[in-house]
């Protein structure tokens, strides 16, 4: 018997956790205060039903993974990993950069934070031409700033550049 941990068992566990959390939350909803309209399913009943279905079907996914309906490819030679970073690291680094960007976008400003993020992502996916990276990041940032300001009349966060307009 083979167990498909990666595709079935491990991904289903968060859904079971989510269903458990949802079930708990439905028990603390103040349905009585909101009022129960003429019988039938109330405001907590519907999400409760969804939680039970998610939990049940997730257990089924795990059961399918344990039954081993798809055998692991243990007998096949592995492809040589691509040079440089492991592929799974790149999205993680990109998300880390995006999280930092979202925290700093308002205090630092869109026009400063965005080219840095874009340059980092371009470097991450393999571009090593710094002139092209810099030019592309700056041009894209200013183009989108111009579209939002002149096209939609929305001023994006000024951040540090706000002292210039004060």
């Amino acid at each position, binding site marked *: 018997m083979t167990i498909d941990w*990666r*595709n079935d068992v*491990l*991904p*289903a566990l968060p*859904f079971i956790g*989510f269903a458990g959390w*949802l079930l708990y*939350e439905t028990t603390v*909803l*103040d*349905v009585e205060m*909101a009022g129960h*309209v*003429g*019988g*039938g*399913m*109330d*405001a907590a*009943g*519907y*999400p409760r039903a*969804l*939680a039970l*279905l*998610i939990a049940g*079907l*997730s257990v089924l*996914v795990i059961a*399918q993974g344990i039954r081993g309906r798809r055998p692991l490819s243990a007998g096949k030679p592995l492809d040589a990993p691509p040079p440089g970073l492991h592929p*799974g690291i*790149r*999205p993680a680094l*990109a*998300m880390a950069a*995006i999280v930092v960007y*979202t925290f700093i*976008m308002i205090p630092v400003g869109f026009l400063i934070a*965005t080219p840095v*993020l*874009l340059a980092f*992502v*371009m470097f*991450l*996916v*393999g*571009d090593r031409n710094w002139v*092209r*990276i810099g030019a*592309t*990041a700056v041009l*894209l*940032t200013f183009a*989108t700033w111009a*579209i*939002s300001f002149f096209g*939609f009349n*929305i001023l*994006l966060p000024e951040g540090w550049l706000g002292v210039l307009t004060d």
Partner: protein
Amino acid sequence: MSETLHILLDLGSSVDWATAVMLVFGLVLGILIGVLPGMGPVLGVALAIPFTFYIPPVPSIALLIGIYQGGNYGGAITATVLGIPGTPMAAATLLDAHPMALKGEASEAVTLATVASFFGTSFSAIALILVAPTLAEFALRFGPAETFSLALLGLTAIASLGEGSTVKGLVAGLFGLTVATIGNDPITGLMRFNFGLTELQGGINLVSMLMGIFAVSELLIQIERPVRAWQTSERIGVKFQMFRALWRRFLGHTRASAIGVAIGTIPAVGAVASSFLAYKLAKDFSNHPETFGKGEPDGVIASEAANSATTGGAMIPMLALGIPGDPVVAIMMGGLLIQGLTPGPTLFFTNVEVLTGIFAAFLVGGVLLLPIGLASIPIFLRVLRTPFPALLAGVLVLTVIGTFLVQQYIVDLWQLWLFGVIGYAMRKTGFSVAAASIGFVLGPVLEVNLRRTTIIMSGDFTGYILSRPIALTILILVALALVFPLVQTAILNRGKRSAAVAKPLPGSRPSRK
């Protein structure tokens, strides 16, 4: 039928300058997105959604329609020139378009694909205009039970008939339904699952959810496995003599387009299936089927006409019933909701002028696809040479700006990234993001009508459902949609086991019967 006549009479006056400009812009953008491998109309429509906030309803929907139609066609250019489908729906086109290019007939192949796309899109526009109002009129008889059953059918079909495991598709769809419960309860106003945040009182931001689960997840997948720019030295022109295919192969065009429209109306089946089915039928009906796969023009015509015709077919259930037929149409439905328009039968009576504008935009878009497609081929071939990191950066900044512009709330960006990570994890593990997004879009409709049904039936489910034959029929279809993949898998597995048993052992003599 009187509603159809009314719409037809108003079509001519429904396309103003703003709508025409947005339609052309959408077509150009859609073709560009279709040409670039890994992009596709789903991403294009998702990126355009936030910008529709600032545009009136008809021009904004025209923009989305243009991207949808152009995106479905654009993949054929890449399929012909590079031998890889620019979009999944161009996979069948590649079978004969690329061999034609290898024989030095690239211009002929691209021209044929463009003409076939024009025919298929225009055909489906006419079908949309004729069928949707009639279907909407019928749907006016629906009560809460029928509406709930229909929403359930749309969700179940996407979850079970789409790619991947049925059970995983259902889990994804249920997850989408659950996310839609965040915020005020639609019936009693009770606040649910908002984590104490006032910004979530109205629920999860539709734009953040759709952009995150489609665009950001795609970005993360592209970042994980980056590709280089595509290189091509082909010089492609227009071969006007290929236009003769329109009347010399009229039957082939019509058959493929009809298949596209029919398949498009069925939720979850989609343009890939319609293009392969039309290709197979074209081969079956051909006098020389052995030429298919080696550069046969009928193969290009069948697949392109069918995949383009699917666009109109998929719009029929969305506009008439409020049930999206595929992920692109689900996002377009989000675009209508943003404009305060609720897709479904009542739209045909409360916002006829908007609906007429949508129909006219679809028809005009189909016609404009021909000149715009042909004129833009050399330009888009140059775009293929753009370095991939620059393209990725462009999509990233558009995603950020599109989401932030909606309300200028940072919490919308956090939702965007959260659903992006969730979408990425789902795609890596075989859970359908299409089912999750459709669950989110259909969630409010499904919940309100289910709860109204439970109020009306007063505990007597069996008696109530038996008194609603339309709802009962739809629920039977739901059950069939759930059971069909299981039966199909069992039959396939039995066939494999029989083939393994029938194969003689090495060295043994085959038995005589």
